[in-house]
């Protein structure tokens, strides 16, 4: 019987499967399908310092084996997150990751300070959301700004800080190294790739925001490649994200170098995706006779 627990920057997760930010709300909806305590953790909807209404609809369109979304960080702001949602989550025996996004370094810092005294287990710095005009993706695309925001946030909080990387860059390895050198406790990747769909009848983009972030199985090979590339560059833990839809995908991502994984779009396809992945991984690990699921991580044998 494989021990499925993993440690992520000092925090123990029951298993390596985390619900991905923005696809799972605050978990309450999915708790109408199964107990949240089954999960390794939940990364909550991206939170900003102040309430945001997000982008106008339509916010989602289907693409081959994927979707593009342009939600644009609609959220009630960090205070309501702490006062309403975190409380509800924390009574459910689950590791909570707060995903935060800011327009400026100061906003990130202000949020980090606010979270410092909370029951949040890990802070995930979303420097890669492509759907906000100010800041957002811009932070994530240059080594300097990644380093800067990471350093500043680390100075304001004792919580572990996980930096979430955007794939829309020339060298994910360089960005990852910049975050790690600046003191990130872990990295999560990938966020979405910027995409567009057009309605050929109206000649309008399907998304009201014109572009949106591509996620789902379509991006899986890109995510696996980036995780393996980053794993070679940094020694901090990596959370693999992007297109994971089955336990086989999860195993592949861990072999590529991920210590834990996040499941996003797959929840839309199958609300039980996370639990099926957990059960499948467990069976696989058992069948291999692993003592600990951590034995999978980074076992890739490159040619």
């Amino acid at each position, binding site marked *: 019987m494989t021990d499925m627990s993993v440690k992520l920057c000092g925090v123990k997760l029951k298993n390596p499967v985390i619900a991905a930010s*923005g*696809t*799972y*709300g605050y*978990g309450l*909806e*999915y708790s*109408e*399908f*199964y107990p949240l305590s089954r999960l390794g953790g939940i990364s909550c*909807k991206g939170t900003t310092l102040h309430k945001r*209404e*997000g982008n*106008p*609809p*339509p*916010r*989602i*369109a*289907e*693409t081959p*084996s*994927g*979707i593009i*979304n342009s*939600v644009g960080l*609609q959220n009630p702001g960090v205070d309501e997150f702490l006062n309403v949602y975190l409380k509800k989550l924390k009574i459910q025996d689950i590791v909570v990751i707060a995903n935060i996004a800011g327009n400026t370094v100061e906003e990130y810092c202000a949020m980090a300070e606010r979270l410092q005294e909370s029951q949040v287990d890990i802070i995930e710095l979303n420097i890669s959301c492509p759907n906000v005009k100010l800041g957002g993706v811009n932070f994530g695309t240059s080594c300097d700004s990644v380093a800067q925001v990471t350093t500043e946030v680390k100075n304001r909080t004792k919580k572990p800080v996980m930096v979430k990387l955007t794939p829309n860059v020339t060298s994910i390895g360089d960005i990852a190294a910049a975050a790690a050198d600046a003191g990130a406790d872990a990295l999560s990747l990938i966020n979405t790739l910027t995409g567009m769909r057009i309605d050929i009848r109206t000649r309008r983009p*399907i998304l009201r925001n014109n572009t949106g972030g591509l996620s*789902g*199985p379509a991006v899986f090979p890109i995510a696996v490649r980036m995780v393996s590339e980053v794993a070679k560059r940094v020694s901090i833990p990596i959370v693999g994200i992007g297109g994971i839809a089955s336990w086989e995908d999860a195993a592949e991502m861990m072999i590529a170098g991920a210590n834990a994984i996040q499941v996003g*779009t797959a*929840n*839309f*396809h*199958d*609300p*039980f995706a996370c639990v099926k992945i957990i059960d499948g991984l467990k069976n696989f690990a058992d069948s291999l006779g692993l003592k600990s699921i951590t034995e999978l991580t980074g076992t890739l044998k490159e040619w």
Partner: protein
Amino acid sequence: MRYTQETAKIMSKCEIAPGVFDITVLSPVIAKSARAGQFVNVLCNGLTLRRPISLCGFNREQGTLRLVFEVRGKGTDWLSGLKTGDRLDIIGPLGHGFTLYDKNKKAVIVGGGIGLPPLVVLANHYGENATVISGFRTSSAAILQSDLANTGATTILCTDDGSAGFHGFTTQALDDYLINNACDVIYTCGPKIMMRGIARLAQENGIVCQVSLEERMGCGVGACLCCVCATKDSKGKHFKRVCVNGPVFMATEVEWND
């Protein structure tokens, strides 16, 4: 657990108008708690996102759901190719349905095209106290007229081209109707432009109006914030989730000019 995933067997299927299909599926858990105006989210082969389809009916005893849909794209096209005995992966019951009042209230129910299916459940509730105004492009596109008539409701059929019934839009028909008839509540589902017209008439006449909206969905359960529509209240404009705050909204709550 409010939501259920079921692998529902197709019990019957027929094409009730060109490109419009009527299927009954066995889905006892969902049928048990289903309510008027709710929907299910249907997995279609090879597609990432599920497709929302309203409940056109449900039978608690038999454990069945009735779904009526029009072929619009890849998902509904695939659905239309299924046969009796095939199985469908659905989740439900989803959404905040219609608010039903006492059966003795006079309800006017206005449906346009493929907006009609969820309204059948309302006609069933209000029976003889319901008047259903339904509009279609042309007579051959008309659906569910006998189902509606069987509930005891008065039915007013409108066609854009005058090929059957009243020659004109449902808004005109409603306008005419309200001159001589009492009405306690209006329900509507159909093209947005139609619902907007109905909502305006309801407001002018001081009648409560419930509208069932559509929006592109991700999760279907309220988690992803993809399916929002613009609503307004005293504090301003807000995006609400069609999948859980709706699909049914009070017409006055909807920001129609968006």
